[in-house]
């Protein structure tokens, strides 16, 4: 019975609390930040934490707290869209592969193996060589890196389910392929896909930060946590706090989402209870 009370689950509760704080911060930053995240001040550069600037200021005198708050929106947006791209394309490939089988399966799986050779950073490098770097490049590059996992999970479920009695029955009753796939097999494949999407989200946030840090993702002056760390690196000895807060924001967010994902898996999977 304990499993039915999610908030008794410490991991889940802690993860949910941190995640809700993140979402609330991002939402708040759209309507309110303590200072304008883009407003520069030549006299107030690289200050440590103080009453006026709880997280200090950066090399242009901008308020780091306001920038960290606005950066949350970037992280959530890139994370959601990247997971969406990965799940969308991956599920489509997995459905085709698992349902059709045969040579289609063989070819698609080799394609998926090949895509696995391109971590987000590598795709981003390739895309940036052709397009200019930006949030869109990071979303697509990170999304592509997720495709293989979603494709494999979907294919696995389809292979397992396509000959089960309820599917055979649906087909015998005259259900066409789209109906059998969409109404019968896909809904039954959803739980592992949902868990995968939850665990991919923090990975996407880490990847977005890394790409922005390398200059392949979000571009200045727009605040992104990774980009702030890149800027902070040059001033480590003058104002170490500048590197501490954005990094801590990433770590806390990813920690919260990981705990939430672990908690969800524990609650949904009877084996681990």
């Amino acid at each position, binding site marked *: 019975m304990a499993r039915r009370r999610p908030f008794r689950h410490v991991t889940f509760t802690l993860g949910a609390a941190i995640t809700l704080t993140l979402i609330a911060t991002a939402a708040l930053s759209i309507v309110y930040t303590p200072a304008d995240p883009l407003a520069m001040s030549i006299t107030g550069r690289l200050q440590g934490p103080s009453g006026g600037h709880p997280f200090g200021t950066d090399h242009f005198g901008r308020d780091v707290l306001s920038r960290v708050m606005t950066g949350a929106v970037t992280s959530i947006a890139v994370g959601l869209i990247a997971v969406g791209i990965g799940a969308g394309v991956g599920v489509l490939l997995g459905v085709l592969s698992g349902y059709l089988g045969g040579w289609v399966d063989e*070819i698609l799986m080799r394609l998926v193996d090949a895509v*696995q*050779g391109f971590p987000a950073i590598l795709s981003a*490098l390739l895309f*940036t060589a*052709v397009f200019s770097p930006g949030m869109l490049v990071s979303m697509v590059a990170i999304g592509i890196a997720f495709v293989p996992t979603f494709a494999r999970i979907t294919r696995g479920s389809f292979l397992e389910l396509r000959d089960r009695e309820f599917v055979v029955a649906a087909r015998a009753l005259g259900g066409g392929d789209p109906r059998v796939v969409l109404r019968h097999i896909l809904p039954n494949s959803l739980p592992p896909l949902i868990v995968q999407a939850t665990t991919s989200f923090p990975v996407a946030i880490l990847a977005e930060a890394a790409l922005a*840090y390398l200059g392949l993702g979000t571009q200045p002056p727009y605040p992104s946590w990774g980009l702030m760390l890149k800027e902070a690196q040059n001033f480590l000895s003058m104002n170490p706090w500048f*590197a501490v807060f954005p*990094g801590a924001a*990433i770590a806390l967010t990813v920690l919260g989402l990981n705990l939430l994902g672990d908690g969800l898996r524990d609650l949904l999977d009877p084996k681990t209870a």
Partner: protein
Amino acid sequence: MRRYVARRVGALAATLLFVSLLVFLVIRILPGDPAALMMGTEGSREATERLREAMGLNRPLPIQYVEWLTRALRGDLGRSIQYDLPVGELIVTRLPVTVPLALLAAVFMVAAAIPLGLYAATHHRRGGDYLAMIVSQLGISIPQFWSGLLLILFFSVTLGWVRSGGFDGWSAGVWPALRALLLPALALGFFQAAVLVRATRSAVLDVLREDYVRTARAKGVSERLVVGKHTLRNALIPIVTVAGIQLGQLMAGAIVLESVFALPGLGRLALVAIGARDLPVVQGVALFVASGIVVINFAVDLAYGFLDPRIRYE
């Protein structure tokens, strides 16, 4: 076993073909003209046209692909615009930074993760287990480049023990070179170790619940033998899978940490090439790294076959 290997090699060849096709397509088909990109805004139309002709961009795409692939198979990845050197040669000169960095990180990863994972599993739901899980949860959450920055902040800015970056090459001595790679490898290995600890713990826990482990214990086999022989060997398949996937991740992570520590490796090569619009170098590095990751995954697949005979006969 021979049939299993042959089938895997066939699959590897097909996968590598797709890798080359993806790299080629991104550079050639996506909107934008490689020749115009390389010439930049200062290039005249005639010069761009000459470059396009010289690069063979006026020919049909399938022919361009086959020619490019044939040359790549012979080790000819084109010529760098920026350095006027063969791309293959540039890649080879950067490998002594990236590969040792990834390997050193892999050593840290395995050396930390397997004992810690084993300890956590054998002390399930006790203090040590919870501590190991908290450490690994933190390790997964901290971005590698941030832990790199924190290491620089602590060890070079505050303590002044090591310098904050740069690499003088192996010719300057093995120890100075290793010292330059130490902090980035630690930052890289710590994150990946955190993932592997969890995989090791859950794999070992699964095996510890098996009947044959209980039988071994009932027969009076020492705990050390039960864990070291009966359990660890059988838990190796999921551990090797995760570790193998992570080797690929280490290559990608090395690219990021090279930037943090200003190391002249493959990642720096590609990043600088992007700034200089040096497409052959970007293309070459992407092809090389992606193929490397695919080959590592293939080796992991083969290792399964050796570790677990059931997989060969599927």
